[in-house]
């Protein structure tokens, strides 16, 4: 048996470069499969784990729901419900988006920009035009929104509560809540009335014990939906988000995995090709072994072993290489590597089967070589 192994190694050394290149194909194939598997599983696991201590719930209304009911629920009862959730012993905090204040503005072309988030700030910096310190009267500074270059220009006049305001500058400042689109000087606060923005209909719940997340989520949803109008329903937004992300990653992984599998299949074909050529080239050698009394099964085994040795060694190296590259990439993006060894084991099994399958045809060819060719 040991001599059999030696013969097999000698067979591989017969054409080292070719054996190496064949193996390289296997390496690349297995390596890319491992890389893709490691990256997609780690990333989706990471995204799944990211929100282990929190979830987002929100109001979902059916299309036929009465707008008044929605509006009513979205203000007073909403805050009461949020407050009730905040007081739960298993909840450590509730984050509600800061509502902010808004204003309806008539733009120069006569159209109305409703619910524009507005703030009074004398010191807002401009990227174009003049700041408030250099102007008097009814003046405004607008957010330099590239999409509204036409309507929001320095010098255009907008209408607020029937009064005309001149836009003296453009800013890239979005204000304290990150969504302010219109700035007025402090002195304008005397005659301009801002409206409280409608409360956001979704909020994030942070639980005390991450391991109780699922339980708390179910309880909170039940609590929120208790006694609510039949056309309304609180749902878990984060779950939907997670499911979407997971689906996306699965599709991506499947697609990339398919490509990697193709390279693996090409590698398998290459094994068939190379081993077949090797069989042809070593026909005399095989004939000598047969004339000396080597059985057909031994010849077959010898060639099969050659294929398997190449496939296994390079597949193992490919696993390691793919794993290392994945580890490096994941370290760079600061995502922990989460990759099951069972997956690698399964993959190696598949690769071994592929190697054996690919080696079978040439091995059978080799076993079929007739020693009679040595006599002329």
């Amino acid at each position, binding site marked *: 048996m040991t001599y059999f192994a030696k013969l097999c190694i000698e067979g591989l*050394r017969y054409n080292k470069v070719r054996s190496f290149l064949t193996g390289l194909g296997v390496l690349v194939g297995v390596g890319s499969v491992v890389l893709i598997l490691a990256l997609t599983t780690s990333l989706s696991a990471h995204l799944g784990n990211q929100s282990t201590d929190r979830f987002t719930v929100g109001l979902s209304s059916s299309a036929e729901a009465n707008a008044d009911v929605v509006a009513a629920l979205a203000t007073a009862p909403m805050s009461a419900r949020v407050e009730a959730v905040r007081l739960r012993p298993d909840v450590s905090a509730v984050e509600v988006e800061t509502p902010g204040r808004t204003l309806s503005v008539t733009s120069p072309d006569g159209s109305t920009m409703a619910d524009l988030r507005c703030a009074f700030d004398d010191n807002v910096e401009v990227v174009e035009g003049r700041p408030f310190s250099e102007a008097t009267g009814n003046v405004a500074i607008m957010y330099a929104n590239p999409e509204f270059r036409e309507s929001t220009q320095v010098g255009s006049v907008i209408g607020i509560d029937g009064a005309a305001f001149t836009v003296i500058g453009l800013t890239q400042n979005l204000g304290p809540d990150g969504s302010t689109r219109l700035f007025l000087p402090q002195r304008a606060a005397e005659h301009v009335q801002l409206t409280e923005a409608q409360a956001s209909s979704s909020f994030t719940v942070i639980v005390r014990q991450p391991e109780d997340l699922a339980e708390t989520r179910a309880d909170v949803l039940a609590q929120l939906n208790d006694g609510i109008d039949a056309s309304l329903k609180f749902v878990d937004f984060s779950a939907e988000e997670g499911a979407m992300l997971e689906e996306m990653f699965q599709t991506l992984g499947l697609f990339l995995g398919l490509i990697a599998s193709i390279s693996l299949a090409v590698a398998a074909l290459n094994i068939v090709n190379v081993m077949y050529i090797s069989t042809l080239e070593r026909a005399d050698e095989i004939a*000598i072994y047969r004339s000396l009394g080597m059985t057909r099964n031994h010849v077959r085994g010898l060639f099969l072993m050659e294929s398997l040795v190449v496939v296994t060694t390079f597949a193992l190296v490919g696993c390691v290489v793919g794993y290392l590259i994945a580890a490096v990439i994941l370290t760079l993006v600061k995502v922990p590597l989460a990759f099951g060894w069972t997956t690698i084991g399964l993959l190696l099994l598949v690769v071994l089967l592929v190697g054996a399958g690919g080696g079978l045809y040439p091995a059978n060819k080799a076993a079929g070589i007739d020693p009679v060719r040595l006599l002329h």
Partner: protein
Amino acid sequence: MISLNGVDKTYRGRNFEVAALRSLSLAVPQGQYLSVVGKSGSGKSSLMKIIGLLDFDYEGVYELSGRSLRGVGDQALSQARRRIGYVFQDFQLVSRFTVRRNLEIASVIRHGSVDAAQVAQGLEDVGLADKALSYPDELSGGQKQRVAIARAMLGGPDLLIADEPTGALDGATASAILDLLADIHQRHDCSILVVTHDDEVAAAAERTVELVAGEVVRDVLR
């Protein structure tokens, strides 16, 4: 030991049909040194393929040690081939292995393991103990044929078949190979079948059979 009875061998192709052997009968007792002569195409190699268990596509009866091996399984056939040594005109050594390695492979195929003492003795017997680590390409034609004979004789086969063993060698080297065969014949109880064109080679054997167009036309026992 070897017994052929009315053996016909015909090569058939799409547009040809060659009768290589015609109802050939031949008996070779154990230990006999036989030479087979004949013109090119007379059927010498065809006869050796059948006797050497390499060709079973013939009509008639061929028995080796009282047993026909036609139709037996690969296992039994391989077993039987391990008792036959072949020497080919073009040596047929594996060129990427050393001389010793070539013999070791034969040893492992025949006995399942390397019999190092036997390999060393085999090289000693053909006078090439000092070439054990050389590669076939580093040897002369005569030396290569000695290695081939050593390989064929490994494990003491019952039958040694040599098809034109001196065909690729010059006169002096050929005589040395003949001496080696004679020496083997003296020391081993093994039948030797030598195919040759050369009268000198033929005369070295105890018995000479001449073939013409697949038939035995002369059978001389010295």
